[in-house]
Each structure stands twice: as C-alpha cells, then as structure tokens.
C-alpha cells in the first residue's frame, strides 16, 4: 500500500494520430494441415434484395469461417442443387442427395440509407427442421461482424462448442520503413485477419499485448521512453494511462479474470518479481520473493492462482502460487527450459514453451497430473495462447526467415498459418468471446 503514489497513473495520454489508423500490412490465413475430414455443410448465397451490389458478401464470410475451423467442409456453389434464400424454397431431399448434413440460407435487404437487414436460417437436412434463425439490422460497417456472429451460432449449434469467429486478435508487427528504421505496431484484427487497425505505432519496441476480460482495453509494454513501461489503452477512444513506470523492468501485464487487478513483472526492488496492481485503488502487492527471475504471470480462470516462469531452480520452469498467498508449487518437470505459461479457459491445462533438442516448441501441461505433451515441431515458437473456446492454441513462430503466427487445434488435427503481406508478426493475444 505504501507504493500508492509510485504507480504513475499518468494523465490520460491520448494516442491521437495513431488510434484507428489503418495498418499497412494485411494478414492472410491459410490451412496448412487437416480440414479434409470436415462435416459437409451448404451455405447458400445470401440473396441481395436491393439495387446495385451488396456491400459485404455475408455468406462468403460464413463459408470461409466454417471452412477455416476444419470442422466443416462447405459445398462450393457448383455443388449446390439450388440456391434457396427463403424458408418456403428449401427442398431437403435435394440437399440429402449431395450429402449436405446442414443448410444455411439467408438474405440481405436495405431498409434505409446505411441500414441493412440480414436474415438467416440454419436447418438440419436429415431431420428436416430449423435449428436456428435470426434477423439483424445493422450499418454497412457491421455486416462483417454479423457474418462472424452467424458463423458462431452455426458452429455452436452443430458442434456444441462456442465459436470464436466473432472474437478478435491483437498482435505486434515489425516492419522496416523506407529509411530502413524499424517500425513497431500494435494492431487488432478480426479473427479472420480482416479489419486490421493499428492502435499504436512506435520506433521503439512494443510487447506483450493483453486483453481486458471485457475486451474493451489492451494492456501492453512500450519502450517509447527508452525503457519498458506498462500502459493500458482503451480501444474505442484511443485514450491510455501508464500503469507501471518504476525503475528497472515494467512488463508482462496480465488481467485478473474479473478485470479489477493486473499482474505485472517489476524489477524495482532489484530483480524481476511478480506484483499485483489493484487498478482502481492504485495499490501494489508483491507476490514473489526470490533472488531468481520471476516473470510471465498468468491468472487461472477462477482467479485463485498465478502461474509464472522462474529460474529459481537453475533454468526456467513453470510454477504457480495462490494469489491469496501460500506455497509456490512447481508444475513443469520435463526438460530444462519451460516458460511463458497460460491457462486453458477451463483451467485444466497450461500451454507454454518447452525446449526439446535445441528447438523451442509449444507444449501443454495437464494441471491434474503435471504430464506434458509437445504439440509442435518447428524451431522458434513463442507466445502460445488458448482460443477463448479452448479449441485451438495460437502462437508465434518463424518460417522462411519471417515472423508468422500459427495455430494448432487442441486435437492436433488442423493447423493454420497467419502471415503478413510485409514484415514480421508476433505476440498474438486472443480477445475474450464477443467483446
């Protein structure tokens, strides 16, 4: 509590010119493995019922989302026996003949200037009944969001698990400007890489983006003052505050599940230790007391534990400690380099980076029995993070000399690659569901 005044809640610095500036580089996502065994589904083109052309092809986005998930194999338009867009036009028999198990139909109607009504229905082809049907009225710039929401509904109805198409991804990219200087950007994009928005750009490094649980703010580390400091930025307004600028390292922000506190790494007392900032009270609590490096804190979903990296036993290993205080418990025992832990949404698993034969790979530790499983076979993996539905792990890696993002499904069946049109991309952070 004596640290009250030392947490510099710097008067709201507005990142004016930079907020919502378009990013130059675009993300492309490709499936690199799996996706052949998906369930056949038909997404009939959504009929545009206005003049001219439709501003956004909703059915195309839904089709791409479901195909990318690896769980579905959407029919091509050529494979479709018909293109119904109204309930009364659906003939289930003809869809059974092409082995589509589910059918999505819909239409988009302009209701007034910049207002569109989107209607969709999802059918079980074999049982010949509707599983879901919704109508949305939105502006043109929300049509993509509506498409992702439809994808989420279809995914959840058919798999029983939450979809993550409506969520977003924050990431750091690095490019070279015309005069060869480095340019770092912190950006946010839709889950399919569309709508990239740079929320901060700097000639000095940016690190460690972390979403608030409500999806409205990002915490991150910026070196713009020539050393690491932790900031917290509102995504809509672009306003930000500096939450840690002590002597030494200020880094590794992680929000508590209820959003009231933030774990950070500070070396103000001599070496890196984990602290918890109470955001509203502006107070600071020290959690670790050790002469070794303690860093990379992450909260358990129930908010009771912080898991972190420490080299107190020599090399970096994974530990956890109750937030309320208590014994530190070691969780990783295989290999001599295990770091950067984070929990699965159900709290049963921890994903981290583990070194095997000189390679740095994504691993998963079972919290119950401490067993470890290695999921990747690349060389320089970093920053693994579970998707908010727990079905996928997204991480950074190196490919052909460039920084890229990759994902692997929890069952290991589907893998994706996220590349930027230019520059390196790294440090992915998946937003909470439906921010």
């Amino acid at each position, binding site marked *: 509590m004596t640290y009250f005044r030392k947490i510099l809640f710097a008067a709201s610095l507005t990142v004016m010119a930079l907020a919502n500036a378009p990013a130059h580089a675009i993300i492309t996502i490709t499936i690199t493995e799996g996706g052949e065994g998906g369930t056949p589904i038909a997404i009939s083109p959504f009929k545009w019922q206005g003049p001219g052309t439709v501003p956004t092809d909703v059915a195309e986005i839904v089709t791409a989302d479901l195909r990318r998930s690896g769980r579905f194999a959407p029919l091509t338009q050529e494979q479709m026996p018909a293109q119904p867009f109204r309930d009364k036009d659906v003939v289930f028999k003809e869809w059974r003949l092409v082995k589509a198990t589910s059918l999505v139909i819909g239409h988009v109607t302009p209701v007034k200037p910049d207002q569109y009504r989107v209607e969709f229905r999802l059918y079980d082809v074999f049982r010949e009944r509707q599983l879901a049907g919704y109508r949305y009225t939105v502006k043109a710039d929300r049509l993509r969001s509506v498409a992702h929401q439809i994808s989420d509904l279809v995914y959840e109805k058919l798999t029983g698990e939450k979809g993550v198409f409506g969520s977003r991804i924050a990431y750091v990219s690095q490019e070279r400007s015309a005069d060869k200087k*480095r340019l770092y950007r912190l950006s946010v994009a839709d889950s399919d890489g569309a709508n990239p928005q740079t929320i901060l750009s700097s000639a000095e*490094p940016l*690190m*460690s983006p972390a979403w608030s649980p409500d999806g409205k703010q990002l915490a991150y580390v910026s*070196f713009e003052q*020539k*050393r*690491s400091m932790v900031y917290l930025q509102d995504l809509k307004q672009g306003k930000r505050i500096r939450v840690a600028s002590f002597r*030494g*390292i200020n*880094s*590794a922000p992680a929000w508590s599940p209820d959003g009231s506190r933030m774990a950070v*790494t500070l*070396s103000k007392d001599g*070496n*890196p230790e984990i602290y918890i900032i109470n955001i509203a009270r502006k107070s600071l609590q020290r959690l670790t007391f050790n002469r070794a*490096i303690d*860093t*990379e804190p992450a909260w358990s979903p129930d908010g009771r534990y912080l898991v972190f*990296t420490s*080299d107190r036993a020599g*090399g*970096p290993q994974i530990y956890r400690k109750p937030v309320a205080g208590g014994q530190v418990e070691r969780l990783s025992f295989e290999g001599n*380099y295990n*770091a*950067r832990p984070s929990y699965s949404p159900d709290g049963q698993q921890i994903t981290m*980076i583990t*070194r095997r034969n000189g390679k*740095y790979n994504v691993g998963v530790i079972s919290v119950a029995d401490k067993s470890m499983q290695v999921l990747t076979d690349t*060389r*320089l993996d*970093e*920053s693994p993070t579970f998707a908010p539905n727990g079905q996928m792990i997204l991480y950074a890696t*190196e490919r052909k*000399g460039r920084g890229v993002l990759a994902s692997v499904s929890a069952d290991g069946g589907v893998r994706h690659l996220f590349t930027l049109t230019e520059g390196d991309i790294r*440090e992915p952070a998946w937003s909470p569901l439906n921010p």
Partner: protein
Amino acid sequence: MKPYFKLLLLVIFALALNACASKPEESAQPAGDEAVVQGAAEEGVLAGEELGADGRPAVMRIHFAFDSSSIDSDNRETIEAHAAYLSANPSVNVKLEGHCDERGTREYNLALGERRAKAVVQMLAVLGIDRSRLTDTSYGEEKPLDEGHNEAAWKMNRRVEIIY
C-alpha cells in the same frame, strides 16, 4: 574513423576465422588446407588494440554465452578499460543496455537482458565506479543487431551495449 574501421574489419575477420577453426568438423580437412587457415588466423590475432573516439575504449559491447550472464576474461578486460576511462572522467555517466538472442520467450529474455546489464554494472562498481553513474536497462530480444535466425546472429545479439 577509417583506419579504426579497417582494424575492426580485421578483428571481425580474425574472429570469423577463429570461429571456423574451432569447429570440430573443420579439423577433418586435409592437412594442407588446415595450415592455410591457421596462418591466416594468427595474422588476424596481431590486429592490435583498438582505440575509440574521445579516448574511450573502442570495444563497446560485451557478448555472452546462451542463457548466461557470466563475464569471461576477454570481456573482463573490456570492462576494466571502461572502468579506467570512467575513473579518468568523473563527469561521465554510462548506460548498460542488456540484449538477448531470439530463442526462448520474450518476457523471460527481457529479465535475462537485465541480468546481463546488471552483471556489467556490478563489475564496474567493484572496479570503483560509483553506482550513481551507472544505469542499466534491458531490451530483451526486441532489438537484435543481426536479424538472422542462426548461431552467428544469436552470438552477435547476446550482448550488453555500453552507451556513453
């Protein structure tokens, strides 16, 4: 500047040759080739002591082994030269900036970079430089000198920069 640059090139050349000569697989070469490599390496070692601008020591970087912050004897000499310079120039302050190679995780590397910078601070303090003149910071793996993804680049990037 130019003569120093040439000297630096010579030193880099010599280091490169040394690095090659020390690789075990290189020793399998025919005796004739081996003799040539050794001759060139010895010539490089004679490059002599560099002198930096304004009387400062020329070597402004300390390099480290992987996941290590220990200072070897060559680096000790470099740090001693800087301690001597700082003793002779009491109004000069210095910043020690720690860096890592890209392997491993970013936040852990940020901590490791700080540990390297502090190791140099500690040694300068032991050599009699007042701590108030020494500041340390870490960039972790965020500012590599060489953006390659290989041993040579990693070796170059594990460093503390001495900044006046």
